[in-house]
């Protein structure tokens, strides 16, 4: 499937900022499940940005703006050809060793019951991970209507006036799943990317990948209760949402002050 992505990310640095510095993870890499056909990141300072690969293998930009005034907009556009592999990513070259993703971080908090429930369930690792995904769904509740737009980067639960209950976001599902997998000694990482919903809408999304000695990396989306399909575009990976932000800045920008507008479309490639 060919997916066309238009992602506009905007925010306003506090007035009087002398120097604003941004770390962007807004460039997907081609891999077993996707080929980046075209991609552009536009915004102030992009022309002479520092470009590098971060510790997790992501393509990153270091951008700065001296005395920024008003709104700053990064505009990302591109097309990505995706392939359905039942979530199996395998072992892409140039990635950090999988063991790295056994490191425990502060974010994923795992209910004690999780570990006991899964430690001794015979079956294959794949069975276990599917069971774990179902358990995360049960613990956080199935989203009645999948949100098409994540709250900013981390997409973690936030309260609003007309919704007093904290509704878990995709990142919360991913974190719980990652924490549970790691507590079972399975390397697990956080993925941020785009998901095209069935109705041709979609937006930023977060899911997880775990490592299996046989199959390599396998994606799990506990929020949607499925393994990623051709409707998923991987943007960046990390230990958790904190290490894979689409944008990080100094001075820091609060999630709620960061406006993401994403529109996704499946593009029909015509064969004449």
């Amino acid at each position, binding site marked *: 499937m060919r997916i066309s992505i238009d992602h506009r990310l905007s925010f306003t640095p506090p007035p009087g900022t002398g*120097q604003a*510095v941004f*770390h962007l993870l807004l460039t997907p890499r081609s891999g077993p499940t996707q080929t980046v056909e075209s991609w552009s990141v536009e915004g102030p*300072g992009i022309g*002479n*940005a*520092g*470009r*590098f*690969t*971060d*510790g*997790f*293998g992501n393509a*990153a930009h*270091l951008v*700065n703006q*001296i005395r920024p005034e008003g709104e700053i907009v990064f505009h990302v556009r591109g097309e990505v050809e995706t392939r359905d592999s039942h979530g199996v990513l395998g072992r892409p070259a*140039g990635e*950090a*060793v999988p*063991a*790295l993703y*056994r*490191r*425990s971080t502060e974010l994923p908090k795992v209910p004690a019951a999780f570990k006991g429930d899964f430690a001794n369930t015979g079956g294959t690792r794949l069975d276990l991970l599917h069971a774990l995904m179902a358990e995360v769904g049960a613990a956080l509740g199935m989203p009645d209507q999948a949100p098409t737009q994540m709250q900013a980067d981390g997409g973690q639960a936030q309260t609003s006036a007309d919704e007093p209950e904290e509704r878990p976001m995709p990142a919360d599902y991913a974190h719980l799943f990652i924490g549970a997998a790691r507590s079972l000694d399975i390397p697990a990482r956080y993925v941020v990317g785009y998901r095209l919903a069935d109705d041709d809408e979609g937006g930023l999304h977060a899911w997880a990948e775990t490592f299996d000695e046989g199959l390599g990396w396998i994606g799990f989306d506990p929020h949607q209760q499925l393994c990623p399909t051709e409707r998923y575009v991987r943007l960046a990976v990390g*230990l958790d949402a904190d*290490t894979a932000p689409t944008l*990080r*800045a*100094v001075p*820091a920008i609060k999630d709620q002050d960061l406006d993401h507008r994403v529109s996704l479309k499946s593009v029909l490639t015509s064969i004449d």
Partner: protein
Amino acid sequence: MGENTPFDEMYNADGSVREPYRALSEWLAEQPEKGLALMQADAEAIFRKLGITFAVYGSEEGTEKVIPFDVIPRIIAANEWRKLSRGIEQRVKALNAFLYDIYHRQEILKAGRIPEKLILNNAAFCPQMMGLEPARGVYAHIIGVDIVRVGPDEFYVLEDNLRTPSGVSYMLEDREAMMMLAPDLFQRSKVAPVETYPENLRRTLESVAPAGAGRNPVIAVLTPGIYNSAYFEHSFLADQMGAQLCEGQDLFVDGGKVYMRTTTGPERVDVIYRRIDDDYLDPLTFRPDSMLGVPGIFDAYRAGNVTLVNAPGTGIADDKAVYTYVPEIIEFYLGEKALLNNVPTYNCTDVDQRAWVLENIAELVVKEVHGSGGYGMMVGPTSTKAQHEEFKKKIIARPDNYIVQPTLALSTCPTHINNDVAPRHVDLRPYVLVGDEVRITPGGLTRVALKKGSLVVNSSQGGGTKDTWVLED
């Protein structure tokens, strides 16, 4: 190790003078009454004039103190030094190879030679460093290895200090002061120079400049500022090397490169000798609340536009829990047996070892895994029963937070105490530079516990320093 009589570096058991100390012994005998006391007073005046002070954290009175200097040098024979420096070189090569491996393929973990969790879940491990190719493959360029001597031929490494070891300015100033105080003593012995350190530091830093830096890389020393206990040293080294001393606010990132604000406009910086801890180095990547660092500096480093010295994440190799594996690390990467001993270390998370430790605490040294500077440690034989009990409780509450070692009988050196000469315990911190080659300054900093019987040599705990002589053949 462990015998009750500590090794005296000046006198043999029969009272005769050991060969390396012969000239010193004669010189001491020739000194007029109160000669040493006068010299001591001169030394203090010199150090005050030089402004060499250090800050004692948590001290009630004025925080800036002149570090006590002992006017009697510590002497190491040429053959002793050859052996020591070979062992040090072996260690720093192995530890740099270990760092490269840990931040790449992690073969040592795959081989099961070090427990994976000890590394991956360690706070000192820096995941952001994964896959980075540092210039010349070097992570720890500036190292201060803490060594103690317990016998004529027996040395132990206490700590490797691969983060930002301090004290090298004392080594240099101690030598300068000593040459002013006792020029005649230098004429009687052939003492290896230490004054080349700043030049060697500069060469080392230049040798690890990024590819695009040109023939004369620009070097900056990045300090947390005047309130840091080692600020004097930061400014001293910058001055000696002819480098700029900068605080975080003096540097900025533009277009993925690092620049320094100067009176004539921004100047590109190629190599940063940073004396700011990893956590505070860059609020964009590490602690977001850091006011000391430079936003974006780590990304500029990853982009290959600047070299950070030492690299972030080197602390994983001098972590006190990883320390016990250093002999294993040397064997794994170099295929050699360790030339210098490690102090046997008890692991308190092991039930049997912990039980033994708790029973024998009065004889043991307890250190916090992430402690330094002599803070948060207990030396059993010189502590009270109440302190023993307090540390027992601490170990039981957090066994993984402490390592326990036998109390070593640190060697003693003659020391000027109240116009007399008496033996006091010493350690040694040689300074090592790793870049295009390994450069070890002969000698290093000798720290001396001025209190009789004390084994804690840290300046923050009442220790002093001595000029350290390595004799040449």
